């Protein structure tokens, strides 16, 4: 198996709602979120970073942990949506 830009076989119960939000005025565009994210969810959009790819998000929360500017409002997706690990 090849793991390129993201882990394959991340399953979702239903596509999650937008549960990660950037507090735009706090973002200093350091890119820590994009660098640690195992699933390449984050992209630079203009002067800040934004989560653009919820479909691949594993909900690990690493982006929230490494954001020194505390610019990430990281929540849980709505019940019954988002990532599941059907075989763990």
């Amino acid at each position, binding site marked *: 198996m090849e793991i390129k830009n993201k882990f394959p*076989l991340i399953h979702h119960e239903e596509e999650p709602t937008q549960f990660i939000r950037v507090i735009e005025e706090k973002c200093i565009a350091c890119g820590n979120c994009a660098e640690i994210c195992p699933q390449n969810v984050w992209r630079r959009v203009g002067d800040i970073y934004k989560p653009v790819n919820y479909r691949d998000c594993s909900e690990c929360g690493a982006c929230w942990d490494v954001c020194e500017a505390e610019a990430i409002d990281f929540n849980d997706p709505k*019940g*019954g949506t988002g990532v599941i*690990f*059907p*075989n*763990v």
Partner: protein
Amino acid sequence: MVQFEKASTPGTKNACGSAITATGMVYAPYLLEGPIEVKVTGSRVYYILRNNKYCMFETVMGGYGMYTIHRTKFDPWHAQQACNAGSELRTATTITDIIKEDDKVVGVTTDEGEKIFAEVVIDAGGAHSIVARKAGLLGRRTGTDNILYATAFVELPEKIVEERFKQLCEWYLTIGGSNYSFNWIFPMRDGVSVGVAGGYMTPKLNIRQQAQEFLNEPIIKEKLKGGKIKSWGIRTDPEKLIEKTYAPGLIVTGHAAGFVQPFIGEGMSFGLMSGRYAAETAAEAISSGDASEETLANYEARWKNDPLFKTMRIYGQTLKDYLLKRPQEEIINTMIAASHWYASPVPFMLKDGVKENDTKKLEKAAKLLIRLENLGIPGT
């Protein structure tokens, strides 16, 4: 009592190492009745060297040191035990906020906007718990306070699992690779759980590369030959305990509180410990009609005075301090010594559980650990 579960089926959001150690069974011996996959009788530790070479040593103990489980089977069974005792289970429900009155937590709000009131709220919301954050008890954990890891389930026929792994857990340490920590393969009935404990939370950490390197090792290819990876999961292990694990009307347990000791493979066990003490404290608070901060402080007093937790915490911290200060080659040597833990007589000694108010067995286990440390075994 009401249990809230984010997923439609309990356990399906819980990527983890898929094994409860014997330590966990000390706190919740009734789990031995649950749907266990494989009772682990020992360990193999592999040191993957350069040039496709490796060395391995195998240690078999006289009892069971770990019990592998599928969270997707085990957690529904566990939730049902609470239902059998009179609890309600609400699945597919996310908690979005806490309700406070006069600085006391008196309930929670669901993602449907429903307000649920309770005498005591027990938070088991995981490493990034909304409840603990809203209560001001939990902040970001980064650097050496948090580990990022990936797990996969690889489907294999039961017969192949038995032939290749017997009832042994396997640990893999790579010398010279980018993975500065450890990987594992645990046997299940219908396959194996594979783990890549990536490392500490710095932006430079590349867990995908580490997982790929591990899967590319010739010995791993051989171990997983014919297997099919069914799913990957990625999670964090918060190592640092929060400063305060209770507030008026609220108790914080498990990963949310930081009850994890990754270097000695203890996550679920101390989560179970915290759950047990939370339940005991909440029961007292409800029966006395007093869920004040003073009453719920008994929860923290309970876990702080737990002899096994105290000992394991010292052990885990000693190992962590050691690992962070030494060069990689030396770390590998230490891990060779530390891996004795997984086959040490301590979990075996505790596997039958401990009777209430009987701490003799735990004290004996603590003394044994101290003896091992004095012998220079776990990074002293």
